[in-house]
């Protein structure tokens, strides 16, 4: 690869690089790259973490971003550094293969699997087996589109099986006792968000890899390859519908799977899925500490510090989360206080406020060629302002995402902000369109476009107004999602207006304007 010149890169070369998690960075003409390191299940050893920190510092200007697929992205990477980075990663058992492009993306696991007190099943080894099955497997090198897999035994299903192409999760076996697995298929956000559908079957842990591989092979052989926009698994699931899709899977397996008596798994009650803060592990006397990174942005220095702290106070095991945060495992009770004071000293937030706990941000215009707006810094400003302006008991999921492609998962958040450029008084301004009331779990809902855009400098104050309005007028125990369902677009828009700022800067989006004209 290194015989190539950056200037000589063709479109095909770029597609090949993306398969290896390597993307050109905005502006492409500058010749910098983003490198996405896949971390199966988010499991990291201190050596791996240190290697990533070193690579970031040597080749990536000291920046590192934790992603919503438990991966870590480096930026500012020069073409000539790529081979060196891949080699160093492979020395510590890490890779970037299929971290991008139409491959099997990083497989998600609950970041506290194996240590969580409430978990139904420790899926750690299942993640490894599934990763090993697909990794470098020529049978799956030619998929129609990317395939996102999540496998979890987490009691709160923290890795969102609802929005993965294949989401496998443990449930209590209501008929026979014990724990079994169920699969949901065809989730995905992108520009047309869809929740996955339950396959309606129950299977054991030993069958997980087989079921997963079989679903992937049905996808490989049956999905539409013509229309570039309709290749994801969700289109196949929609076209076949669940019973016929299940038949396909069972036909390939060569046997019937045990049929569930219910069409959907029993719901988990609404709760915080973040695993942040300090919590007792199921191993007696040990604790884990989930640290908030706000938007996933961190640095080479911080990653190195975390590797050191993980070894000094814990077993060294570190996990990345699908909410762009980091967790240190296996800290003995007697070392907790010392760890906390060190975390404080280095500026790590182990007691995130409601507004920091659930905020995520995509890469944004700083590096991403598709993005229209800045995101990471906006998320930091926003969470800081909200924390001081409004106090809520429970975390809200807030997403700052730079374009309609949903890398920031804004359509499943309580508050989803989608970046756009809006002409106001003849000037193009960075703004965010507001989506409210999204969520996963028992009442999975795609967030609703309420029809306003907010200039980005007004975002913190206007959202603080909305949340104050929610706090003032909510019924006892009413969730933000329920509150939004109960209130009209107009009411929510009015709440976003504030006396100081005045309502005139609100832009009604094209979609709503068109409706006005029709009627």
């Amino acid at each position, binding site marked *: 690869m290194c015989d190539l010149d950056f200037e000589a890169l063709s479109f095909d070369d770029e597609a090949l690089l993306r398969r290896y998690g390597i993307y050109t960075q905005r502006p492409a003409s500058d010749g910098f790259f983003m490198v996405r390191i896949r971390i199966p299940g988010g499991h990291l050893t201190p050596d791996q973490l240190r290697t990533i920190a070193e690579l970031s510092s040597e080749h990536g200007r000291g920046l590192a971003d934790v992603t919503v697929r438990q991966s870590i992205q480096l930026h500012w990477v020069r073409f000539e550094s790529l081979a060196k980075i891949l080699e160093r990663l492979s020395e510590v058992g890490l890779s970037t293969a299929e971290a991008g492009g139409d491959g099997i993306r990083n497989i998600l696991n609950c970041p506290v699997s194996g240590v969580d007190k409430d978990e139904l099943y420790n899926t750690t080894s299942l993640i490894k087996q599934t990763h090993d099955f697909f990794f470098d497997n020529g049978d799956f090198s030619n998929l129609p589109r990317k395939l996102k897999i999540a496998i979890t035994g987490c009691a709160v299903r923290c890795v969102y099986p609802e929005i993965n192409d294949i989401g496998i999760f443990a449930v209590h076996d*209501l008929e026979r006792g014990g724990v079994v697995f169920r699969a949901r298929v065809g989730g995905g956000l992108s*520009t*047309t*968000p869809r929740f996955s559908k339950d396959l*309606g079957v129950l299977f054991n842990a030993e069958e997980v890899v087989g079921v997963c591989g079989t679903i992937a092979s049905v996808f490989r052989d049956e999905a539409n390859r013509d229309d570039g926009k309709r290749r994801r698994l969700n289109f196949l699931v929609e076209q076949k*519908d*669940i019973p016929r899709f299940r038949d396909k899977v069972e036909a390939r397996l060569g046997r019937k799977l045990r*049929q*569930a*008596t*219910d*069409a*959907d*798994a*029993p*719901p988990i*009650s609404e709760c915080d899925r973040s695993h942040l803060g300090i919590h007792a592990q199921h191993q007696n006397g040990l604790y884990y500490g989930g640290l908030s990174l706000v938007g996933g942005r961190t640095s080479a220095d911080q990653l190195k510090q975390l590797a050191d702290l993980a070894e000094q106070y814990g077993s060294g095991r570190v996990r990345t989360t699908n909410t762009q945060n980091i967790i240190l495992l296996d800290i003995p009770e007697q070392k907790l206080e010392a760890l906390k004071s060190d975390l404080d000293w280095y500026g790590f937030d182990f007691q995130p406020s409601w507004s920091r706990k659930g905020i995520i941000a995509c890469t944004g215009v700083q590096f991403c060629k598709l993005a229209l707006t800045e995101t990471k810094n906006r998320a930091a400003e926003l969470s800081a302002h909200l924390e001081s302006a409004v106090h809520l008991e429970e975390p809200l999921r807030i997403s700052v995402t730079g374009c*309609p492609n949903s890398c920031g998962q804004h*359509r499943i958040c309580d508050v989803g902000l989608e970046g756009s450029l809006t002409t106001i008084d003849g000037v193009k301004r960075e703004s965010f369109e507001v989506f409210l009331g999204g969520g996963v779990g*028992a*009442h999975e809902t*795609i967030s*609703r*476009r309420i029809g306003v855009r907010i200039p980005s400098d007004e975002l913190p104050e206007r959202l603080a107004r909305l949340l104050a309005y929610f706090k003032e007028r909510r*019924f006892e*125990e009413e969730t933000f999602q*329920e509150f939004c*369902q*109960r209130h*009209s*677009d*107009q009411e929510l828009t009015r709440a976003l207006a504030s006396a100081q700022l005045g309502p005139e800067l609100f832009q009604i989006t094209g*979609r*709503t304007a*068109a*409706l*006005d004209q029709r*009627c």
Partner: protein
Amino acid sequence: MTQAFSEIVRPTAQIEAAGNMLEEATPEETLRWAFDEFQERVTIATGFGAEGVALIDMAVRINPNPDIFFLDTSFLFRETYELRRRLEDRYGIRIRAFRSELTPEQQELKFGPKLWSADPDLCCRLRKLEPLKDALRGKDAWVTAIRRDQTIERSSARVVEWDCQWQLTKINPLVRWSKQQVWEYIARNNVPYNSLHDRNYPSIGCTHCTQPVQLGEPDRAGRWRGREKRECGLHTSTQPLAFVIQKGTLPSSDAA
């Protein structure tokens, strides 16, 4: 067209036989039969009335995770939404919400203000009947909590019948029960119920079209008060329902 269609949908012998077999059955026996017969292809509709909550309690004892839905017109009482949450927490179940394609504002833009009063039938169609189609999609049977003595339209309901309007099997386990039996069941099993029932609302629909009743009035007298209308139309029509609004003609919120 409709003529030919309704001929096809005459109750089949099987449904007739099931209806006969279960005419004397307890609600629990009927529910058990429904779950056995239709597996994951049966869904339970609830409007959160007294009958509805009793039925949920019975269903959960037989099948710990039944498919249950309600039609969220966006005009329900606060107490009704609270009851949904109480039931979900108590039984560890999900009660899915189905809503109109039209938000209340879009409805107002399209059909004018206070449609519930200008044309209550159309309002019910938009906010209940159309969403019901989504709720029943892919199902072979639905369970309702109607009782024969509620309205004249319901007096001929059978335990198991073919639903001409929605084109699937309809199961009504409580048809033979009296209001008193329902309330005895609720009290005996401590089933969560709508607190409005304690405030002279025996039958509860949307906020705009439900009023309390006076002593001696029939239970459903507070529904669509001052009008001939007794039913929203979920349980009445004998013909397949024509589409009111076509899917895709309105800007949908999640289009690409």
